[in-house]
């Protein structure tokens, strides 16, 4: 099930809200949590029951391991590595085995060791990373989840289940443990506002940009692409991905607030960044947080000199690329960003960060172009297609020019929003660690009316809900 669908917005969501708040108001905390878990399972299994046992089994196994890690400290180390092996094994089997097999066969001949067709379970990358973080912290001595129900809710809670934000149990478990009884009107108002704005980003902006980007990347797959088309497609996808993913994160945050739950911020106007270092503090913030805490720092971080630091950065970004998908384009994308980070750190160490207006403008432009080039690789169906797109963008392509008027207009509108406006959460005054008090930039009534107009426009796109891009990861 997806957020931008009739069955979610007009059936599952209102029923779950009613059930949860009724139970909560009566002090039936366990019942309220069970309502959320049940709704989350319906949400996950809507497109098929096939992987429900897998996610439930993963939750049960990790909860049990976490409890044992806490109770049996003498066995903590082997239990921890069993847990890591279990989670990475699941991820490896479903996501990477076929890729590894194909490449080994390409190198050494033969049919490969893995020939069966495997369907990637929805959300496996997200719930695996969350549980790896949970096991790691429990191994380090943090208290485990207070109950199996709270833990299940932490992993399965539907607003973040499929495509994040990648939450940390330390920020979520306390909220689930004490859901409270009082209905917070401020939460509801802010949650509805963020939900509508996120829905607009996805249905009105991202899905429209997809109609520009998709044909271009499809053509690049056949090699027939000209410079104008390549730039149009690359820029359209750059903004499509941002509005799609940040829109989803906004919806998750908005939905969480409707239940009194606060999720971490995942995007903070990343395309306004003046460096790649800054970009990764604003783009998919929860993934960056995870990679820093559980890959970069365990590798040694910056504690062993600049050369080792750069190697660690590179490795971390390659892991980040691979997390997105089992393909050489994702590996290359990660490596490109790793390289850019290394260059950025070296530059900053040598020349310092840009401080003048002109310098920051140049820095912003260089950063943005590097990000666009990375997205071309990220989106392309193959390395050859990525090469064709990048070559065309450099002026070496041949192909028909698209109708630029509408495409350019769409891209300019998207760029204007991304570059010049504050993002949704800044606009509404959301802060994950503070009580939600909506900040109205217009009089409240006018803001409500504006949101009503936006909601009406989104309503028209619900019958043809596009897929959220990050569902693929």
């Amino acid at each position, binding site marked *: 099930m997806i957020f931008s669908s*009739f069955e979610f917005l007009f059936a599952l969501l209102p029923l779950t809200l009613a059930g949860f708040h009724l139970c909560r108001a009566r002090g039936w905390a366990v019942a309220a949590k069970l309502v959320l878990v049940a709704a989350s399972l319906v949400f996950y299994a809507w497109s098929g029951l096939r992987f429900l046992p897998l996610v439930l089994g993963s939750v049960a196994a990790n909860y049990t391991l976490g409890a044992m890690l806490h109770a049996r400290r003498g066995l903590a180390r082997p239990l921890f590595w069993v847990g890591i092996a279990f989670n990475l094994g699941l991820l490896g089997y479903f996501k990477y085995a076929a890729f590894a097999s194909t490449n080994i066969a390409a190198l050494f001949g033969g049919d490969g060791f893995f020939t069966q067709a495997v369907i990637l379970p929805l959300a496996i990358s997200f719930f695996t990373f969350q549980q790896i973080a949970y096991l790691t912290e429990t191994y380090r001595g943090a208290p485990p989840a207070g109950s199996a129900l709270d833990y299940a809710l932490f992993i399965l809670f539907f607003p973040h289940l499929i495509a994040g934000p990648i939450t940390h149990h330390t920020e979520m478990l306390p909220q689930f443990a004490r859901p409270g009884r009082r209905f917070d*009107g*401020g939460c*509801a*108002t802010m949650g*509805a506002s963020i939900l509508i704005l996120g829905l607009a980003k996805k249905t009105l902006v991202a899905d429209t940009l997809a109609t520009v980007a998709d044909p271009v990347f499809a053509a690049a797959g056949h090699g027939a692409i000209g410079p104008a088309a390549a730039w149009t497609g690359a820029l359209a996808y750059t903004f499509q991905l941002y509005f799609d993913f940040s829109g989803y994160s906004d919806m998750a945050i908005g939905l969480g607030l409707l239940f009194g739950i606060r999720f971490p911020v995942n995007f903070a106007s990343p395309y306004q960044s003046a460096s790649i270092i800054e970009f990764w503090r604003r783009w998919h913030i929860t993934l960056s947080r995870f990679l820093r805490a559980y890959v970069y720092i365990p590798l040694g971080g910056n504690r062993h000199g600049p050369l080792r630091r750069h190697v660690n950065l590179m490795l971390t970004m390659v892991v980040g690329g691979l997390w997105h998908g089992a393909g050489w384009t994702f590996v290359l994308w990660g490596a490109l960003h790793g390289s850019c980070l290394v260059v950025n750190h070296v530059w900053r160490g040598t020349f310092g960060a840009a401080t003048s207006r002109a310098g920051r403008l140049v820095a912003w432009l260089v950063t943005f172009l590097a990000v666009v080039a990375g997205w071309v690789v990220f989106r392309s169906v193959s390395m050859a297609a990525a090469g064709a797109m990048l070559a065309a963008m450099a002026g070496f392509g041949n192909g028909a020019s698209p*109708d630029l*008027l*509408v495409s350019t207009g769409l891209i300019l509108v998207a760029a204007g929003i991304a570059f010049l406006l504050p993002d949704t959460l800044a606009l509404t005054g959301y802060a994950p660690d503070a009580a939600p008090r909506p900040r109205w930039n217009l009089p*409240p*009534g006018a*803001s*409500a*009316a*504006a*949101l*009503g*107009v936006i*909601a*009406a*426009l989104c*309503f*028209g*796109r*619900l*019958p*043809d809900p596009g897929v959220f891009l990050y569902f693929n990861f």
Partner: protein
Amino acid sequence: MSPGARLFGIGGFTAFTTLALLSMVPSDRYIQWQATRTEAFARLGWIYERIHFDPAPIDVAFIGTSHTMNGIDGEAVATAMGGCPDITNLSIPSYGRNLHWLIARELLEHRTVGTLVVEVVENETRRSHPLFHAVARWRDIVQAPMLLNLRYLNDLALLPLDRLLLGVKTLLPAAFGLHRRFDPAQYDGPDPDNTRMVRVHNQAFTGPRTTSEDPAALDRDAWEERADKRYNMLPPALADLEYAVPLHYLRQIETLAASRHVPLVFLYLPSYGQDTTPHDPAPYAGHPMLTVSDLLTPHAAWHDFAHLNAAGAAAVSARVGHLLATAARLADDRCG
């Protein structure tokens, strides 16, 4: 009322008002029919042009799905009928009686038609046509039967944005590759042939339809279709409800044709390997039903499981022409 509830009320009222106002944005009908440019649905624009801008008579009009679009060659029908009748094939891919109704209404309200031939397949489809919302007027969508119309809410939800986009396209047609004035240079003629390839304004939407599907694949697809077919998913007490929507539109077509004194004929054109007559013939009672079952049996006639190839279409079209001519002579004899 709490402040939060008041704000939700303002938001809800504004949303509803916006939806209502958007649904009434004016647009040009010609633009509306041209706007769908994907796949063979691009023929919709040509249908509007044939009806409104081409003065060539319409002696026989065919309306159906891709079965008829690919299966009827107007020239072959005309040759078999003799006397140079003007044949026009107004069929569009995908199932959905409501779109047939829209096409029939556009045709019969604006042109004089000799005979209207409407396609029939094994059973009426329960589905609403996916492009009904694209060419319907807002009243058609709002007043569509609700039971059991699984796309009613979808079509209603699409109405506001559809109208907004159509309004924009009406103001800036060139930006979308559309035109408000009929251009004879871009017109595909009174009866373009869709049996060999579907081309719209020199853009091919299908490959050549001159090949035959593998016989084993045809037989397998036919067997699977028959095995999966469920003529009734609801209990007998609700059987009337199950097909209420397509039958509503069939009756609308029938009523309009009768009011315009246009003879209505049905053409049974199922997929390969299906029954030789419709599962339920009752909806078609009172009107001739043309059947060409013997011509649908050979594997060599089929491009794929659901569509005849050019050779199959030529044979079927010639037979349909003879049958229509015979029916016309019988009618003349009765009248004579």
